[in-house]
């Protein structure tokens, strides 16, 4: 393990995250982990890591860092602008950095969260099987908190030949200001029989009050049926649950809560959560109803695309072209597809 980066300026909310902490929800320990698993995974693959390695998640404002030992880095996610010693560098691409180099990551122009991967992975200690920061519980990641100036990030050792490989993608996702999230009705859709169509036909605005726990939406109030139960005994939460509190303004729950007491009208597909994670306050959001079968099919197809990208990056000899859009039939996902 060697010291790789010293934080000069941490940015707004920068935390160490991996794919999350599983198997402890029954003790009240939420999953945590990268909000945008897609950006996180590709950043890792670009530097030769497995997707489960920890990266640095930065929200809106990126970090400034000094390099303490040679490493390969890659920045994905929000378009934050990456410079090394003042020279602009492309994202979704690996770069070699040397001792003394200055890395600066700016403010997101599109998207909301950037992911910086280091070859070998950020070597924060494992807590309950994960390196993810759980801010609410003040454990995991870097001392259970957001990074601050002076913090030093270390990396696990890596095969040098692998570190020096340059890998890149020739496309990146478009983070639009208006997104449609595909969602399966339920678990408490039967509390909203009257207003269900209203929910799926409405546009909502992402509130600035959103955080890693949940994305708060503002829009037409969604009412539960007159004959729906008064209260819900707290139930276990799944990432993507769209809660309807008494004020009718939906909250899409992410990965920092294990049980909740508000009814959920719908649940966003696991393969669409990264798009919400990249939505900025003020973004326009609507929901498209899909069946369980369709939802599971779409999620499986998306996993297939990711597997293809992973295999291509592992054996890369030239920059990777976008996968065939037929594999993932959503025009908003990649720049090439939308043109």
């Amino acid at each position, binding site marked *: 393990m060697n010291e790789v980066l010293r934080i000069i300026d941490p940015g707004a909310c920068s935390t160490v995250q991996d794919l999350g902490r599983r198997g402890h929800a029954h003790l009240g320990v939420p999953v945590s982990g990268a909000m945008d698993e897609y950006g996180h995974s590709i950043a890792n693959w670009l530097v030769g890591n497995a997707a489960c390695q920890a990266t640095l998640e930065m929200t809106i404002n990126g970090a400034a860092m000094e390099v303490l030992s040679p490493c390969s880095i890659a920045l994905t996610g929000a378009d934050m602008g990456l410079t090394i010693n003042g020279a602009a560098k492309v994202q979704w691409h690996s770069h070699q950095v040397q001792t003394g180099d200055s890395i600066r990551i700016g403010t997101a122009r599109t998207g909301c969260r950037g992911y910086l991967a280091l070859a070998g992975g950020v070597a924060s200690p494992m807590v309950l099987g994960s390196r993810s920061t759980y801010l609410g519980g003040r454990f995991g990641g870097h001392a259970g908190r957001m990074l601050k100036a002076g913090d030093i990030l270390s990396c696990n050792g890596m095969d040098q030949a692998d570190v020096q490989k340059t890998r890149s993608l020739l496309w990146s996702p478009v983070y639009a200001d208006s997104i449609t999230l595909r969602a399966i009705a339920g678990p408490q859709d039967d509390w909203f029989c009257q207003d269900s169509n209203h929910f799926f036909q409405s546009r909502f605005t992402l509130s600035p009050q959103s955080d890693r726990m949940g994305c708060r939406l503002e829009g037409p109030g969604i009412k539960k049926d007159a004959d729906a139960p008064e209260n819900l*005994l*707290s*139930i276990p939460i799944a990432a993507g*649950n769209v809660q309807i509190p008494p004020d009718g303004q939906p909250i899409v729950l992410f990965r920092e809560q294990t049980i909740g007491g508000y009814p959920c009208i719908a649940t966003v597909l696991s393969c669409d959560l990264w798009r919400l994670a990249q939505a900025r306050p003020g973004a326009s959001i609507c929901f498209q109803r899909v069946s369980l079968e369709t939802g*599971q099919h779409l999620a499986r197809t998306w996993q297939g695309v990711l597997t293809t990208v992973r295999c291509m990056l592992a054996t890369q000899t030239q920059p990777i072209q976008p996968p065939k859009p037929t594999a993932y039939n959503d025009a908003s996902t990649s720049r090439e597809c939308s043109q």
Partner: protein
Amino acid sequence: MSCASNTTCLPVGQKTQAYPLVRISGDRCLLATYGYTVDAAVNEKVRRIALLLYQEHNQGIEEVVPSYSTLAIFYDPDQVSVQELTLLLDQCEQKLTKIQSDEARIITIPVCYGGSFGPDMEDVARHSRLDTSEVIHRHSSSIYRIYAIGFAPGFCYLGGLDKGLHIPRLKTPRTFVAAGSVGIAGSQTGIYPQNSPGGWRIIGRTPLTLFDTSRAEPCLYRAGDSIRFLPVDRATFQAMLHGQGE
């Protein structure tokens, strides 16, 4: 208006009630509900089915999370379908009578009541028209079932508070409540596992660390266990606080 609901009723066994009610919670999770009230028997069924699912290492099940009357199964849809899981839940319920599951435990939590550890003790006594010794006696005489753990790591939702001790939350929550604080909110009593803000009426504090990620078993209890509070004096509290790590 028609309602395209994902909720399906599945009758189980010989009972007339259509439980569990299986609900879809996204593409990787289902919920099975066994009742709609805070009921020890229902909660015990949820606990034991969750335990069975957990112990049997069923293909494709990633995590099982129990709460009051509902359990969640997080699963990999490439390995197991909702139909298979519903059948599995049915089988588990039938096995419940035959299989010995490990008994729920009663965990004793020492509490130093009142004084600086229980800043709201006087208010609780006044509100319930009891003297503080009677509040302590009633609070420590019940056995409280842990219906669910959530909100924060190790935070337990307890049932069984003496009706005479019910009291509304503070109008203005405190910005700081010390870890181990024992409080009352409405008809509930509970313990804060970590330092946090909070609006419960605080009547005492336990020296035990309820949740610690460095322990092999991070939490002192599981949902379905019960808790009993044991009044201790300040000297015992201090001794236990210092003796804990040994």
